[in-house]
């Protein structure tokens, strides 16, 4: 596997972070995902206990497509603005084929809440990335948070 793949995956990670960190770009988030895709946010403890309920479980592309509507329309005006910055580690490429890449990437996210406190969380992205005609998109992004008691709510995806 060449260094080009690593650079491509890092650019996908950077584009993802730029979109989730910008409240004006929430509607672009579903485009990061393949036509059949899943996005799940859970905690390390929840995984270890074999628990099944997650923090977010968009297990179909339809739900991924609906999330911007939830954020921008359903919740509009009903949350304190969160300024977030995601920092991602260098992805570890566990498997690379012509069509599929499996990767794990550590990350932290700093959340500064309007009127309130700031929080930092850390975790890991466990990704399945498809290579299509239009480049790389996520078939599955599992977000595993280290905290078992989350310090705040999340408005946008992590």
């Amino acid at each position: 596997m060449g260094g080009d793949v690593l650079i491509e995956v890092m650019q996908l990670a950077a584009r993802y972070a730029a979109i989730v960190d910008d409240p004006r770009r929430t509607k672009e988030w579903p485009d990061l995902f393949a036509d059949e895709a899943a996005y799940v946010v859970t905690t390390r403890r929840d995984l270890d206990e074999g628990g099944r309920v997650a923090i977010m479980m968009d297990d179909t592309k339809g739900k991924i497509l609906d999330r911007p509507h939830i954020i921008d329309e359903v919740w509009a005006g009903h949350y304190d603005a969160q300024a977030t910055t995601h920092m991602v580690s260098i992805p570890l490429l566990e498997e690379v084929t012509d069509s599929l890449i499996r990767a794990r990437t550590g990350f932290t996210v700093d959340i500064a809440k309007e009127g309130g406190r700031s929080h930092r969380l850390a975790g890991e992205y466990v990704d399945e990335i498809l290579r299509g005609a239009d480049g790389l998109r996520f078939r599955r992004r599992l977000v595993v948070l280290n905290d078992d008691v989350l310090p705040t709510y999340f408005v946008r995806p992590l």
Partner: protein
Amino acid sequence: MTIAAGAPRVRGFDGLVWPEADNQIPREIFTDPDVFAEELQRLWPGPVWHVLGHAADVPRPGDFITTVVGNVGVIVVRGKDDVVRVLLNVCAHRSNQVEVCPRGNARGFTCIYHTWNYALDGSLTGFALREDYPADFDPQCYGLPALRCELRAGVILATFSPDAPPVDDYLGAPLLRAFEETFTGDLEYAGAQRWRFDGNWKLWAENMYDGYHARALHKGLRYIGLTNSDGGFQDPEGGRPHTVYIAVGSNPTVNLAETLHDPQVFEVRTKERTDEGVFTNWLVNVFPAGVGMSNWDLITIRRIIPLAADATEVIFSYYVPLGEPEEITRHRISKASNLYGPSGVISLEDTVVFERTQRGATGRGTHNILKGTVRQNPPYRRRDEAHMRHFYEAYRRVMSGGPAF
């Protein structure tokens, strides 16, 4: 409007000034650290019963969960004799936390510090280096003390206090019936969500008594369907400060097909419906802060751990019936994940208002309970908030050294 200036800082519960009107609450109960500390001494260990979980959290002998009541760590464990007990999670020797795993199965509990071993019923079964203990040392006096613990409809209730009435007296028949309606069938644990908010636990507790806010704050409820016509707060009888809230739903008022690509989590698949298509949700509050719910397809227990006057941990635990088709179980679990929790479509906004209310509650004046207070007693109507008065009446009684009702 003139705002009273220069009010002195309240020093604890006994320093609070309660207005004559029973629907006006001094805001300092949310913000004063001394009130919080006194709650840890008087309310949490007081003559009240706490909801800790469900039998499905500890289905087999040796199963346990650890949690906190007030600020005291406990182990909820099913013994070899199949009896569920709640034990103090503190070594009788020198106070170490005995069990640190949040959930598991054990043959006994061992304190790592000096290898004190406890059986599942809390009795001390062994310890290292027995020689040179005091002559009158009696191991039977050094077990993990057990709280009073009862199960009703599988719900695990416990109290620290010998003065709490028997649990059936405390809950009353309407609540016992409501628990039977809420927790039906054989259930298994399906996971939990835990998060903190920067606010007082009573803001959370009174929100669970609040039928008034739902349609205003949770726009997502339009996607799931709640009617205005029926439902309400039953009378828990005998002046008890609990609630049984029945909410009736039918069809969404939003055209889901036009609005959403995948409305699955908003569909109601497991509730029985009347011929008119109406289904019934149950929400049971046990004073001070225990909640059991069967809303749509979600069977849950909700509880809190008070961390500070302005900090609270919330725990939503989920249970699913055994033996259902896989797709129904998946429906319940994906629904729980997206509808509820810190980022739930219909729960994120509650956390938001708790934090904003905590910031607001430093202002002068009173916290006012209004809608439905034209009625003095239950039953209240579906969109009333009046039941909160009885929560605060019980709170005042227990904090003043009396019974909850």
